[in-house]
């Protein structure tokens, strides 16, 4: 579905990503994992086609028009518009096949009560939910989520994750970035481990407990050790 070959990205003389290779197949669930500034957001933008790599090739084999659903790290929503209108706007632009999907999404994410509220009347966590919903209106084949769960309470996070898992089981490909171990545990993704713009490892969820990163990066190893207690 998506192939990255030797992706290198430079900006102002700095190499932000170097020699990234990877392949994502239909129905995969992948997380980009790594410390702040590792280059995760940059890589996911390259996947979305928003940023052109300086070197290397990104290719995508979609089944339909508009295959990508991108949810940016910042909440990208129109001020002054109600939640309903935000969704409607993207609905008009992309003309999705079914409204059933949207109704289902609104229900699963618990947006029914806030449909008539304007964005500035929402709390941070609610905005996150709307931000996710707006990126999925057109029922994308490949969902790219950049820290979509920041500031969302556990109950809401549970709603979001349950919905995403259901989609993933139905064949939607998901790539997400998070620092939240709860999210990772719930979605059990393949982990692409990044540090300083370099892909250190790609591990299946099952082999994560046996991952030894000490040689490459102590900081990364610490991130795993802190979180791994529950898994090991």
């Amino acid at each position, binding site marked *: 579905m998506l192939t990255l070959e030797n992706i290198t990205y430079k900006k102002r003389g700095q190499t932000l990503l170097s020699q990234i290779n990877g392949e994502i197949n239909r129905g995969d669930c992948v997380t980009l994992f790594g410390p702040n500034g590792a280059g995760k957001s940059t890589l996911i933008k390259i996947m979305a086609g928003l940023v052109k790599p300086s070197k290397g090739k990104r290719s995508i084999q979609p089944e339909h028009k*508009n295959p990508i659903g991108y949810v*940016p*790290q910042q*909440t990208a929503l*129109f001020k002054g518009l109600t939640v309903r209108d935000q969704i409607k706007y993207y609905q008009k*632009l*992309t003309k999705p096949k079914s409204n059933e999907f949207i109704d289902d999404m609104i229900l699963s994410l618990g947006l029914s009560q806030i449909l008539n509220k304007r964005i500035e009347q929402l709390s941070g966590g609610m905005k996150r939910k709307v931000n996710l919903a707006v990126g999925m209106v057109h029922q994308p084949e490949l969902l790219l989520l950049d820290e979509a769960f920041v500031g969302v309470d556990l109950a809401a996070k549970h709603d979001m994750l349950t919905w995403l898992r259901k989609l993933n089981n139905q064949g939607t490909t998901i790539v997400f970035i998070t620092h939240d171990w709860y999210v990772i545990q719930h979605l059990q993704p393949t982990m692409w481990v990044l540090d300083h713009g370099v892909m250190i490892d790609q591990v299946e969820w099952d082999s994560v407990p046996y991952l030894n990163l000490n040689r490459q990066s102590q900081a990364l190893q610490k991130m795993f050790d802190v979180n791994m207690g529950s898994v090991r």
Partner: protein
Amino acid sequence: MIFKILLQQKWTLILLISAPILFIIIGYQFIDRTTDDIKVPVALVDPYEQNITEQLLSDMSTDESFNITHATSIPEEVLERGEVEAIFVLPEDLEGKIRAGELEGTIQWYRHERSVFDGLFKEQLASAIMTRAIRSEAANLVQRYQSDADWNEIYEYGLRYLEPEPIFQIQFESVQQQISQVNHDSEDWLLFRWLFWIFIWSILAFLTQLLLNWKEQNIFERLSTIGHANSLRKAWFFTFLVLLAILTVFTSVGIQTLWLSSYNWMTVAIDVGIVIFSLLIYYLLSFVIQKRETLWTIALTYGVSASVVFFLIQYNLLSFNWWFSIFLPSWILV
């Protein structure tokens, strides 16, 4: 839907839409105030400094509607500049001529093609002279039959002796004068068109902030992943293009009608052109600018320098140069 999105800055839009009404009302007040104390400027020239000139002036009830310059030589350059509507030149020994009844072709009346109200002054002057002529004719008649009568006494009561019907036709010799194109009255309406541009220019800066906000919020990124990279930008551009064009047509026609009591489609087209180019400048800037501060710095710098150039040309301190046309308001002066 797109209108709901563009309507975010409610007050800016309200201000924008009320612009024509605002400008026409202010313009109307402005005009109203200035016409109140407008007097028709005329010059009365008496090269021989005769006493009768003063008497004629006091005979006429012209204080309210005329602004009379009393001179001893013909100030033609004043007429050429359009500072007076007309010049009337009195002949030598006017009093003698009145007494003798020899008034044919004696007063010269200079005017230019735009003189309108000077005819009223002509009537006043004619009637003042005529009254005196009638009285002296009466005195002449009486004295012819009654040589011991006092001429001055009869003159004073002349009107009682004689039917006040015109005996003499005063000839006003009309001299058409070519005046140069500068019309000082028109400055105000040029100023209003400049003011309208400044107004639109500032409002556009606010509206461009919308684009920068969307850029900052990554909305364009989101849109470009679904193949609509520029649809929102274009919607912004074309919506305000239509809105501004309509508003400008109304305002331009309004301002022109107020000042010139008619309008010229060419001028309307120039005004619309200026506004559309302003919109285009902001639209293109929105692609390169990232920060709001940059937007405001550019808006302010351009607005001020374009206005300075406008005023320098307007007051003839700078001669028009083709490259000034990069400063949009200078188009007003074309």
